[in-house]
């Protein structure tokens, strides 16, 4: 692409302090909550106007409205369902791996999103602790923003699960965590390592969604959800490629290589 390729290195000066990093995280959280009233109003409108008609996201045998999905994606107003799901997961009795069909894919997707959230948090924690050396502001912004988007993606899948009468998935894809994340994160010593590591996770998520759309998911509503998320994961991947000095759109067609399947252990 450019003739002036320059691999990202670790700058010599600290670019962001712990205080700034925490403030940025807090600001993003506030931004997130700023959006809630508007979204909740829209959901209320939906319920008032069309609440008695079960339409939209049908998933397996049970249905969930996009309104419910929207609420959960905001991380609020689903307290009862979420708390119930959380307690189930806390007991270690998640039934996610007993699910079949589209619901199993939803659980897998939620667990991968949770793993991404957890991994970015680990990266942010390591940065805050000074373990990654200099953390440029743009990298911190990337991590906090992407983490929030993954939280919303997980919430979307969990809304579908709880809407279908299942428990939300609060655990992570243990198969990937144990085989890839845990050993891999031990080798993350700076932001370049972190970016490379994150790139791998984003590519796995995008591939999993693509594989779901192409080969696994049957319900059109679920296809829409997966389809609305996969291109976002690919954008994360493109920016990471760009920052790392690689061509940002390496493939003309998205690939399913690395896609995870419903046999992964969730816990």
């Amino acid at each position, binding site marked *: 692409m*450019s003739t002036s390729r320059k691999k990202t290195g670790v700058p010599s000066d600290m670019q962001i302090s712990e205080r700034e990093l925490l403030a940025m995280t807090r600001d993003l959280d506030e931004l997130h909550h700023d959006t809630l009233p508007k979204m909740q109003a829209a959901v209320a409108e939906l319920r008032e106007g069309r609440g008695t008609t079960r339409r939209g996201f049908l998933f397996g045998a049970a249905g969930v409205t996009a309104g419910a999905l*929207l609420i959960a*994606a905001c991380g609020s107003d689903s307290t009862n369902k979420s708390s119930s799901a959380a307690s189930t997961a806390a007991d270690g009795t998640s039934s996610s791996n007993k699910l079949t069909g589209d619901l199993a894919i939803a659980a897998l997707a939620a667990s991968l999103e949770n793993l991404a959230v957890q991994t970015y948090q680990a990266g942010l924690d390591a940065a805050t602790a000074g373990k990654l050396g200099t953390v440029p502001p743009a990298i911190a912004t990337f991590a906090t923003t992407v983490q929030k988007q993954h939280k*919303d993606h997980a919430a979307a899948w969990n809304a579908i699960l709880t809407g279908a009468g299942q428990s939300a998935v609060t655990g992570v894809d243990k198969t990937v965590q144990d085989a890839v994340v845990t050993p891999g994160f031990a080798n993350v010593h700076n932001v370049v390592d972190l970016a490379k590591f994150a790139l791998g996770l984003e590519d796995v998520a995008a591939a999993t969604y693509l594989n779901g759309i192409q080969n696994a998911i049957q319900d059109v509503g679920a296809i829409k959800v997966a389809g609305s998320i996969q291109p976002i994961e690919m954008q994360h991947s493109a920016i990471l490629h*760009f920052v790392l000095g690689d061509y940002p759109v390496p493939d003309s*067609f998205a690939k399913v290589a690395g896609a995870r399947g419903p046999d992964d252990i969730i816990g």
Partner: protein
Amino acid sequence: MPNNRALSALIEESEDLHSDAMRTTNAGLADLVEQGRDRRADGDIDPDEIVEYQSERSRLLTKSLAGAGLAGIGLTRLLASPAFAQSAPDVQAAQTAASIENLAIAVYNQAAGLSFMKNIPDPAGATVVAFVTKTVEQHTEHMKAFNAAAKQLGGQEQPGPDQVVFDSVVTPALPTLKTPLDVVKFAAELELVAAETYLAEVAAVSDKTLRSTFASIMGVENQHRAILLAVGALLEGGAPELIMLGPPADKLPAAAGSVGFPDTFLKTDQARPAEEGAVK
């Protein structure tokens, strides 16, 4: 060095993006509810249901005319025309996709020939030229894939661009493109239209192979958009010297970390009608 005031504005704009994204996601999901159909995706689809689907999708697009930019322009004219929709919905969708790819190829090639695009100082200049070259290659591959799908489904290839968008959007816009930033922003809009159109078709088409094609391309168009948004932000922020593969991360403004992916969920409010680029 970046212009500090411009960068501050950029950062502020980035913060606004979150609110905007959530608001528009809200609208997009509400639309999904409104147009909710219990359509199965296994190929056994009632043609009447498809007609209803297309009608509903057109209604939603018409509803978004106000301030909708690319999504709205020319749509009224299209909807008023009874001449489209001569072949099967999947064939039309594939042909329309090919027409969008042809349009993108034409726009990139035309933009690359503009004098101010040829004179962007390096490293930005070389980066942009390389991006345009590669992106045209990728759009060409996409176009071939969609045309192959159209033929596989018994239809014709679509050799031309989406004429509605070309006449109503591209032709009037080209004379207004005065700077590289104008071009980058315009290209980003076209990429969004492509990505959203393909997302809409992923859920709408009945042929599984065609669905797979749409699914494998929509994310790539969204990646193009991500890079264009990032490049545009750096141009707008007065930091063209940072436009290179592997930019010095410590010099990037904070907002550069999020400007490439303003939406948490890809929407379909900018999607073009499935019939728009069908071979007449």
